[in-house]
């Protein structure tokens, strides 16, 4: 089955993003496919490269990083949510004259149309609240 997952929670602040990660990991392990991971609302913080976790703690952002790389998943952040929360790729950093960018390179920056399209293209659309 073809899934899209909507992640609304920031890493660490709540369990939500970690649960979304575990769900995604489980469905891939079962042989299902992921059409898109859509990071929206506080979920865009999962895309930040600057988060640092203590060595004896699991980093949800790092877990995403591995999973997305291993399965070559389509991982995107909503541009409106990301800009408001200071999660920028290098293009946006230049556009808004910011000194640095922090969005991991494999995250695409997209509009809400990509969420609607993901809903239309997926057998299942699963939302993990903030």
């Amino acid at each position: 089955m073809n899934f899209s997952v909507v992640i609304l929670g920031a890493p660490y602040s709540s369990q939500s993003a970690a649960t979304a990660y575990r769900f995604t990991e489980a469905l891939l392990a079962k042989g299902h496919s992921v059409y898109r991971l859509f990071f929206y609302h506080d979920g865009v913080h999962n895309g930040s490269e600057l988060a640092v976790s203590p060595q004896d703690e699991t980093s949800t952002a790092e877990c995403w990083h591995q999973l997305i790389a291993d399965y070559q998943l389509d991982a995107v952040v909503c541009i409106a949510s990301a800009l408001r929360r200071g999660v920028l790729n290098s293009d946006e950093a230049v556009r808004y004259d910011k000194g640095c960018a922090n969005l991991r390179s494999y995250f695409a920056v997209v509009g809400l149309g990509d969420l609607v399209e993901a809903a239309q293209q997926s057998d299942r659309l699963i939302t993990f609240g903030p």
Partner: protein
Amino acid sequence: MTSMTTAEAEDSEIKGSLLMVFRHAPYGRSLAREGLEVALAAGAMGVELRVLFINDGVWQLLAGQQADRLSLKNHLAMASALPLYGVDKLFVDTASLLERNIEPAGLTIPVALLNELEVRSLFATDGHILSF
């Protein structure tokens, strides 16, 4: 097996309509606003969309919101734009209104009031649900 026409093949790739469920109050956190933005985007794309206001989400429809006191944009003004974006299937869970002592007359946007069974069937019949 009969072969599909191009139009049929395209139809088969579209997985049903969208039900958006708004469960949170309009202010205090940005979730309600960002949910509304999804509904407006989906409406602009011509998606078959239904919106259900339930639990604290019913506060979003209340008249007399003074968002300027919070230095925020008025949520109701934005929600009022839904029909302009082609999103006119708006539903409210009546029990949520009663629990909060909100008179249906206090709602400013045309909405259909649903009882518990109708809310259940709304959830049961829809393929995709986005909850905010």
